[in-house]
């Protein structure tokens, strides 16, 4: 956990109501699946966002405008300095993937899977991405994923890109030794049922602090209460009880 100042170097629309924000600053190495908390001027609580990609001194966020805070974010000008807490949460365990990994994402949950896919590729692991969206114009990072995944399957609710329907309906014939998933709760439940190996799921929660002190984000797991911001946001498939 580190509280740093970062500068906006890019903040552009990449899909319907979805923006990509690139920040530069003194960021340490961040594990895939970890998140950051951004202070948005004029709002009391920080906003949590997954890290979509990192490089030396650089951080990429993909965010959707869903409320007042994210609406304010889309107007952040290039050059603006932001107060960010980086390195929050546990992140995905990349090392467990041996030969092939399945990445299942829904909506904005696809964002952290990009940093994960990059890390898996570096380790020589083949990744298959199954990504679900409402419609073709919601899809982001299409070319970027194409560079790091061996196979990509899109599913859209309206059929405008890839298969029509839910992302979890197309997992059957894929071979993988572990899986990683992030997306809305109903999707994660379906993923838990549709996968045949152990794997990891990344959750969301309303957060007070994001660094483990307020107990605002707790979920009940098979091994008792766990904080999504601290022991999570990534949990083992077997840990979760819904």
């Amino acid at each position: 956990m580190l509280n740093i100042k970062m500068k906006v170097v890019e903040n552009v629309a990449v899909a319907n109501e979805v923006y990509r924000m690139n920040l530069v600053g003194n960021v340490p190495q961040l594990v895939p699946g970890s998140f950051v908390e951004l202070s948005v001027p004029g709002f009391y609580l920080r906003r949590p966002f997954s890290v979509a990609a990192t490089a030396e001194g650089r951080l990429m966020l993909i965010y959707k405008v869903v409320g007042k805070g994210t609406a304010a974010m889309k107007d952040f000008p290039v050059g603006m300095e932001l107060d960010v807490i980086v390195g929050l949460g546990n992140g995905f365990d990349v090392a467990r993937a041996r030969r092939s990994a399945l990445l299942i994402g829904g909506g904005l949950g696809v964002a952290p899977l990009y940093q994960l896919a990059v890390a898996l590729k570096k380790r020589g692991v083949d990744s298959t991405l199954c990504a679900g969206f409402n419609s073709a114009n919601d899809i982001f990072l299409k070319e970027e994923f194409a560079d790091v995944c061996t196979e990509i399957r899109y599913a859209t609710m309206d059929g405008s890109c890839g298969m029509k329907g839910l992302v979890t309906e197309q997992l059957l014939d894929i071979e993988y030794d572990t899986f990683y998933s992030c997306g809305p709760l109903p999707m994660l439940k379906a993923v838990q049922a549709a996968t045949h190996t152990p794997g990891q799921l990344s959750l969301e929660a309303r957060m007070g602090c994001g660094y483990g002190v307020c107990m605002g984000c707790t979920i009940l797991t098979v091994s008792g209460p766990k904080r999504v911001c601290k022991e999570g946001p990534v949990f083992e498939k077997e840990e979760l009880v819904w």
Partner: protein
Amino acid sequence: MVDTTVNLCGVKLQNPVIPASGTFGFGAEMSEFYDLDLLGSISIKGTTLEPRFGNPTPRIAECAEGMLNSVGLQNPGAEHVAKVEIPQLRQRFHQPVIGNICGFSIDGYRECCRLIAPQVDIVELNISCPNVHNGGMAFGTTADGAAAVVQAVRDVCDRPLLVKLSPNVTDIVAIAKACELAGADGITLINTLLGMRIDLRRRQPILAQKMGGFSGPAVFPVALRMVYQVSKACNIPVVGCGGVRTAEDVVEMMMAGATAVEVGSENLRNPFACKEIVENLPAVMNDLKISKLTDIIGIIE
């Protein structure tokens, strides 16, 4: 050189700045941000006799200049707190520790205090909890209810005893006086104000519990007013809490009558809140020509 030391119920604090219960955990996470030893004291997460999961989520909602929480006293239980959490805190923090305790029956409070008191320097009794033997009405909402629990805990508590009051009452002074009479050594003011927010799109309350405790800068004037009223009416020290954000707020609370000051929600949005307050305090005192902080306690007539 300015003098920031204060004496809280016979316990000397190097400065009056104390993270409030529930906004600092048991210190472990915050010690990753800064050296806790610069704080006056720490009030640890509210502890109940039995472990508690707390309320269903969502438990947090944002407001203008503040927030709601309905955490519901999630904690690992008094035994674990006494045996594991406090000893761990003591390893990284060498200043007085305040144990915040809570219960749902008089016996629950007493047993909890028996386990926690020996491990801490000051006990802070949170009497905002619902009494399961009295239709769930909070102990702290009547003078009689407050006095009953203070008396019962006083008997088993050999540490200075602060009583933390709920602001959700019509006559805070009457309740504070009842606590003083029942043996309290000091009063902490205030716990959260009951509030509510609605998600317009879902047409549902944001909190699963519907209502929750309102805190943050927005409540500062309410807290300050209660600190002023109670410190004038009682002869025991008052700890000011509610919406404190800056060193100036600390001075203001103390002018109103507080002997020490707790900082709550601000820790959740700025992990360095307490550190910054402690570090800015001398400059603010110099600017206001205060050489000894205790000189200004309750100077407002």
